[in-house]
């Protein structure tokens, strides 16, 4: 087995008085696709947002426990949040292109680190777009507005935007909900390809997708981790009744 890229120790997370994550302990191995499944409001989105500290943006939240990235607590004082977020990318559940050109969208993150007056190398943008399986569709019109792309293309653009920063971990929060099957297939294909270089943590939009793409699967319910294991184990012989109920579609 691969070494652990992320280790979560006794994580508790609160929005004001409401607890969204309860005593969560989880190891996420490097260079695999790790799926977190569960019904709505199980704390999955919250979990993903704690992993690159996007949750800091929501006022009134509180976190307990530790999250180690390469054995360093990302909530410790020495960690630079901006650097952490570049190392751990995030793709949202709806396509979120910024109101600028396709090229500028992909280059957005790069330009935040580069010194002024240095042009963003076209190669980085091209590589990222190729990795996200979008290059061939947009190479002729990199200057046109990102909003003019279809929903599926926009979501792949968002993936490319994250990949341009050459992150170590990519978090995807139901990235394919509401997308057409072709775009979904393309995204899944790129993820399988990508895991050679990065660790992928995804909240799939259904169990079939989880079964298709993941190496390991975790099932969450009410902010608790119910079960975690290799893809085949969880789907063929779940240990917990709630997991099997969920997988067979008896609730959620």
């Amino acid at each position, binding site marked *: 087995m691969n070494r652990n890229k992320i280790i979560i120790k006794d994580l508790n997370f609160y929005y004001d008085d409401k607890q969204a994550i309860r005593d969560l302990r989880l190891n996420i191995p490097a260079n695999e696709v790790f799926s977190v499944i569960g019904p709505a409001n199980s704390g999955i989105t919250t979990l993903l947002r704690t992993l690159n500290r996007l949750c800091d943006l929501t006022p009134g939240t509180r976190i307990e426990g530790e999250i180690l990235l390469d054995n360093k607590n990302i909530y410790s004082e020495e960690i630079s949040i*901006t650097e*952490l977020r*570049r190392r751990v990318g995030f793709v*949202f559940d*709806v396509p*979120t292109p*910024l109101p600028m050109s396709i090229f500028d969208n992909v280059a*957005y993150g790069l*330009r935040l680190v580069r010194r002024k007056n240095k042009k963003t190398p076209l190669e980085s943008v091209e590589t990222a777009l190729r990795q996200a399986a979008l290059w061939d569709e947009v190479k002729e019109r990199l200057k046109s507005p990102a909003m003019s792309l279809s929903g599926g293309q926009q979501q792949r653009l968002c993936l490319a*935007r994250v990949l341009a920063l050459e992150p170590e971990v990519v978090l995807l929060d139901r990235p394919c909900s509401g997308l057409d099957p072709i775009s979904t297939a393309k995204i899944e294909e790129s993820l399988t390809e990508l895991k050679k270089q990065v660790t992928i943590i995804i909240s799939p939009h259904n169990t079939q997708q989880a079964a298709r793409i993941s190496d390991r699967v975790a099932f969450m319910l009410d902010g608790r981790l119910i079960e975690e294991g290799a893809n085949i184990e969880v789907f063929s012989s779940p240990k917990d009744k709630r997991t099997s109920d969920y997988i067979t579609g008896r609730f959620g």
Partner: protein
Amino acid sequence: MIKLNPHTAEKLAKGVIWTVALMVIAVLIFIIVFILYRGLSVINWEFLTRIPRRSGREGGILTPIIGTLSVTLLAILIAMPFGIGTAFYLAEYTKDGILTRIIRFCTESLAGIPSIIYGLFGFIFFVQILDLKWSILSGGLTLAIMVLPTLIRTSEEAIRAVPKTYREVSFSLGGTKWQTIRKAVVPSAIRGIVNGLILSVGRCVAETAAVILTAGVSLSMPKSVLDSSRTMAVHFYQLVIEGISMTNAYGTAAVLIILVFFINVVANMLINRFVAKGR
């Protein structure tokens, strides 16, 4: 009292409301036509480019035009950093608390204070105490305070209209707060902010009471911002109230109306494009 049948009441009410609304438009058009009808014939190249002579009885309105432009420009330049900065502070840098409540209270209160009070304040503070005399600078400073609330409100609204996801995306890509504001928020909010600036320009151009007490009524060509100069609105007022020249008063009023019309149309076009883009 007679009890009306609901449908008769509906017809009656609709009739009254339509009539009143159309009457308001009619009055507006009437006022504009009334001024332009007699004013447009006065306007020509000489009128716009000549210095007024004999207190404005003869000659053009070049100095008042320059006065208006310089006072307005100065006011906007001074107000811009404070107004837009306050808007960013309220929308991006702080949660609701005592301080924001106080800032909002002061902004709303400033918006309601009549221009003559601004005039009094500008007169005592800028003209007398800071000893800037009646000058373009005193007028600009006074108007800058006066347009602050307009600028803050419109800019804050424009900033708040920027979708939250833009900010999240920028942060998630490792942007700092400042980078996020500069690269993800400002480009989307800029139209609304510019619109606020244009509205403020309109208020400066139209203002009389506050500038007459701070920039004075001098008709000679200002050489620096420390010289007194009257604006077009003040010039127009003087022409009317002193009974100097009705013809030139009409001409000046027509120029003012055209200018204000132009400013409002531009602002409106920007609003429309802004709203269309935002959705």
